[in-house]
């Protein structure tokens, strides 16, 4: 006796989606933890020291969170106006932050009150950072100047005014304590050398620069601004290596992962994109609001994203260990233990093993199909959750009903809601629907609108088909003229890619419409 064969859900491969190790790596993050802050989060910085706490700058305060805590373990609230750009020193013990009023404050991680205050900027300081020797602080301000401060004496060492607009991006070199890179709204990125006291390199980004970033090797420099992400090669004198345009709104932040040095960019279009080493998008994280800041923990343990609505979303890496503990905990449940007595029993060599029949678990719609409850099965398949998140299941059930010749019965006696399903566009189904509800169509404006839309979609599809055929015709003539043979024997075949494209379109048309 054969068992019931469940409905086969047709799995269509998504074109363009490539499953590589990289995407698997980036998919391996848990669902994000959301922490609400008081205002837009402008800067996130991870401490370089092992617990890898991170400082979140939002509104008038800087919070420091532990790697897994939802509550701040420390907060610096002594700002009179909006705080900007809170960053750790290389040893993770000091924190520097700018502010709207132009004051730069230096905090001890364990203290509460500012250890030093650097006064001198006349406008808001959006970017501050320690230089890699740890004794100097560099800041970029809206007063077009870039200043370097001495930490022990709290005096200004130098002031560089080479930009012609607000300085909103700053990155110190980690290898050389005298180098840092700034990006400004005047569309330029400049590399400064403290030893010469002026910029040594200038690159034209072409858009207001929102963020600059140095790769760990400090050969490559990334600048973001507008919709573009540009990578510059510093060893070749600032030659543009690549220009990426994968976001459709301003790219506000960028960071480099510590495993494999992959570039991540966040944008106001609410996406974080991960690029592989050939600068193709390997993965994409979706967020709820426009992204202002982003940071990734050492070893990629966590990815923190700050958004305009003040929500900090932290994704932690999923570990093999976590999974194991989860399953083992589940396995230790009492009921299971009761039922599987002697599960540790090892059969001896001449024992005859009698295997238990494996119970077949069926989905709800399959159970209903098994008992020939076609209408109920369609109900199940049309549940809101199924039809929004798994439209292929709904389509599969409809196809199955059609195969059983009971689609008409299942569709009868329904209200207009059924037609609101977007994937509900299987040819046969629409035909049956039209057959069934022809008389009452005009009574519902919703359905009429839907039909209108369907007609538009079909029209567009037909146009597209026509265009494709035209292209095919052009190609055909090209190919025939290219063939050296004299006799015109056959229509030369178009390249496979095009045929596949046409096929794909045909298939899509058949399945979706």
């Amino acid at each position, binding site marked *: 006796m054969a068992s019931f064969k469940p*409905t086969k859900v047709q799995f269509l491969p998504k074109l363009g989606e*490539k499953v590589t190790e990289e995407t698997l790596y980036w998919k391996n993050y848990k669902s994000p933890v959301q922490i609400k802050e008081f205002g837009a989060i402008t800067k996130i910085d991870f401490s370089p020291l092992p617990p890898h706490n991170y400082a979140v700058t939002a509104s008038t305060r800087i919070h420091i969170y532990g790697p897994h805590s939802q509550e701040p373990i420390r907060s610096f609230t002594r700002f009179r106006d909006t705080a900007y750009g809170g960053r750790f020193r290389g040893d993770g013990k000091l924190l520097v932050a700018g502010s709207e009023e132009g004051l730069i404050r230096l905090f001890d991680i364990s203290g509460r009150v500012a250890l030093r205050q650097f006064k001198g900027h006349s406008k808001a300081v959006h970017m501050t950072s320690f230089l890699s020797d740890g004794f100097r602080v560099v800041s970029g301000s809206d007063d077009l100047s870039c200043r370097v401060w001495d930490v022990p004496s709290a005096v200004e060492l130098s002031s560089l005014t080479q930009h012609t607009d607000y300085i909103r991006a700053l990155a110190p070199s980690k290898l050389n304590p005298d180098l840092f890179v700034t990006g400004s709204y005047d569309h330029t990125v400049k590399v400064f050398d403290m030893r010469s006291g002026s910029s040594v390199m200038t690159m034209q980004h072409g858009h207001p620069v929102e963020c600059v970033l140095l790769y760990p090797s400090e050969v490559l420099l990334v600048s973001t601004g507008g919709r573009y992400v540009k990578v510059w090669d510093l060893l070749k004198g600032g030659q543009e290596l690549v220009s990426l345009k994968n976001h459709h709104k301003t790219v506000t932040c960028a960071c480099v992962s510590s495993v494999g040095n992959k570039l991540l960019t966040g944008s106001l279009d609410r996406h974080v994109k991960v690029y592989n080493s050939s600068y193709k998008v390997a993965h994409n994280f979706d967020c709820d609001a426009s992204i202002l800041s982003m940071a990734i923990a050492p070893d990629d343990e966590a990815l923190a994203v700050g958004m305009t609505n003040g929500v900090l979303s932290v994704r932690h890496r999923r570990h093999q260990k976590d999974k194991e503990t989860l399953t083992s905990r589940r396995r230790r449940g009492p009921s299971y233990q009761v039922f599987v007595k002697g599960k540790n029993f090892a059969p001896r060599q001449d024992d005859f093993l009698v295997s238990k029949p494996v119970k077949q678990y069926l989905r709800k719609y399959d159970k209903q199909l098994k008992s020939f409850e076609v209408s109920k099965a369609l109900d199940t398949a049309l549940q809101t959750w199924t039809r929004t998140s798994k439209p292929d299941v709904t389509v599969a059930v409809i196809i199955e009903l059609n195969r059983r010749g009971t689609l008409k019965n299942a569709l009868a006696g329904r209200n207009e809601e059924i037609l609101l399903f977007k994937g509900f566009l299987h*040819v046969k189904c629409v035909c049956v629907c039209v057959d069934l509800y022809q008389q009452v169509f005009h009574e519902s404006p919703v359905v009429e609108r839907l039909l209108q839309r369907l007609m538009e979609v079909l029209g567009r599809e037909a146009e597209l088909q026509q265009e494709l055929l035209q292209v095919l015709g052009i190609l055909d003539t090209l190919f025939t003229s290219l063939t050296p043979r004299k006799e015109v024997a056959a229509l030369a*075949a178009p390249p496979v890619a095009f045929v596949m494209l046409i096929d794909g379109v045909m298939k899509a048309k058949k399945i979706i419409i």
Partner: protein
Amino acid sequence: MVEQSEVRVVRCGGSKINLRPPIISTDSRFVLCASGDSVKVYSTRTEEWLHSLQGHTNQVTGITLNPANHLQVYSCSADGTVKLWDFIDGILIKTFIIGYPLFAIYVSEKHDGIVFLHIAMDTDSKNECFQLVAVHLPKSAEQEVEAKELSAVSSRISPNPSCTAFGREGQYIAFARHLQLNVYFFRKQKTYSFSLKATDKKGAKNAFTCIACHPADDCIATGHEDGKIRLWRNFIHTKEYTYSTQHWHHNAVNTVCFTPEGTNLLSGGIESVLVQWQYGAGNRKEFLPRLGGSILHVSTSSDGQLFCTSHSDNKITVIESSFKVCGVIQGLVKGDAVLTDLMIDPRSKALVLNGKPGHLQFYSLLRDKHLYNLDIVQQEYIYEAGLDQFEVVKAAFDIKGYWLATVEERGQKSSDLEFSLKLWAYDERTQSFVLNTTITAAHTDRIMSMCFSSSEETTMLVTTAEDGQFKAWCQGADADTQQDQNFWSCDFVGSYHNLKPTNCSFSADSSLLAVSFQEVITIWSPDTWELLTTLCQPPGVVRDLCFGQLSCSKYLIATTTRNLLCCWNLLTCALEWSTSVEVSKLQPDPLSENVAAFSYQSKHTDLFVFKPNEPRPLFTHKNVCSEKMHRAVFVPREEPLNNCDESSQWLNRSQLYFLTQNMDLLTFSTATEEDRMLSSSKRLVIDDSVAVTPFYLLLGKHRQQQQKLNTPSHPAADKPQQPQGSLTCLLLSFPSLFFPPEMEMESSEQEMNSEKEEEHSEEEMEACDSQQELRAQGSVDEVTPKLSKAQERELKRVRKTDFSWMAGLIDSKP
């Protein structure tokens, strides 16, 4: 002509086992079923075919256990004989010649020595009118007896044998025809008939389809075309009869059957669900769904422990009384038509063709055994008349048997055709094919033909479709999806002047691909996909296309619809020869240069075997069969024959099998081969008289040895287990019909040997007792003094059986 007669057409294996209800032996060890012109005996436990009872010369149309001896079986056949067999040893005991084609057989315990047979009314045999006759089987010791004592019980009965059934203790016989139920009472010699209206209020069809009688109660269960089951009672009176209706089946009930105690009623129909109704408990029922094809017959063993259902897909299912399937006996599945060609799996050398709906079956021709079904469609099969089902329409193996390509199709009747191309890879671990790639829209229209390339290095599949294109499919990376390497994707699309391609074929070394576009044959190079040349021989569309093999690989042979068989030489690109012959099927032999062509002319099919390099046929066989022939295949032999005969030489490397339109699988065989087969089958009969089980190997031999020891002085007898002792001579005088069952004899023997002196007196006493009893009976019965010889013998038998039974009691007492 002498040489030609040596090769003849032979029907080979795979005959229907579901024509008549199977029967289970009393000890539940064997299942017997009518299969072609023989009765096959299967083991219920191992599902193995043990042996077959061969002797009929035409289709066996009915089998039934001998009610007088449960180790014997009656079979009737369309050749007009009833034969009595010992089915355990496979020995023909007796043949009764009736003289008319027989269609069914019934027996009843009450009617000893009488069998009831269906024969066609000789007045108008075309009208499918049948009559039921009772035949008194004469008791003579001869092997062949003519039974001429026919007495008609009823005329104008239904041709369906399941529409006739014996009632309680053989008192009456019920038969139904169309809308009428007739009950014939033997004692009153009267027929009562009850009829139903053609349709009831709801418009259901009321015609009878099957009938069963309760074994202990006066109740008849009838199945109807609309799926209802009616239970008739009180039919002793013509007027006051009653019936109750039960309805579960949604289509015609094919069979109803009471269990031997009458506690349950089993029914089955097209839905392939076995339903068990509790007798007298209203609507309480149990189901056993998804048994396979539609249920045609149900039978039960005499102890009610086993049920047997036979299905339309040539299958017998053995079911325990707890409603669990415990065995499946599968024959060659024959659907309505073979849509795929006959194919040979290069790995297992099994014949592959359409099996169950949506499946491909693998059938071993050597062992005449169904190997397995491969589920192609992988969807729940709904048994419903008129439903458009997915069917496997095309299938092809690559040369190593590593890949299998299938096309399934649905909606041939309606306008919207659904089809998909599937590619299956052979999995060494599971020893079966595993789905690798599914291509849902391989073409925009129906796929006409497909073939794999014949080279061993690269595997390529070419499909031609009605949309005017042919496509080449290769295994490899798809640029768009970029998945694993071993999926299949399209490599090339070709077309020719918007003509519809029909056939495709690769040359023996895969360096050329021939695709026929209606009248034109195009030759392509699969490496560069360049059109090399075109060949054309109008008029007539190309119907079949194949390349020559081995040394003739430079030839391309094609047949056209306008009765033309053409052969081109591809080196000169010119027509080598052509001949005017209507060829319905062209089949090249992969192991030799030979090509077989079946031609259909003036209502019979002829076979020509030729080599492409010479236009004269190598071998001709006129009048192979009377139907048109579309499917044929060359099956490579296990070991090549070494016939030197010119006419049978072409059969040396491989054997030609073909399938006629009414699904008979036939083959050509030579005389020497048949001799060999015959000798081997004889050897089989001697060896495998008992089921070869491990127990048999241990115990059977032991028993044989014992027997030898026990009977050193007795001469060899024709019966395998010769009774000995004082009863032997008495028993030997009996006709074999009255042989007591094996077990009883053994017990009496033992008793004979063991009880020597002590019980001798008791024994005699018992004997006296029984004789007294008999005498007492006799005094009641007036006729006793003039007992006929047969009756006397019967009495003796009764005495003997009683005797052993008593002896058993005595044994147990102390």
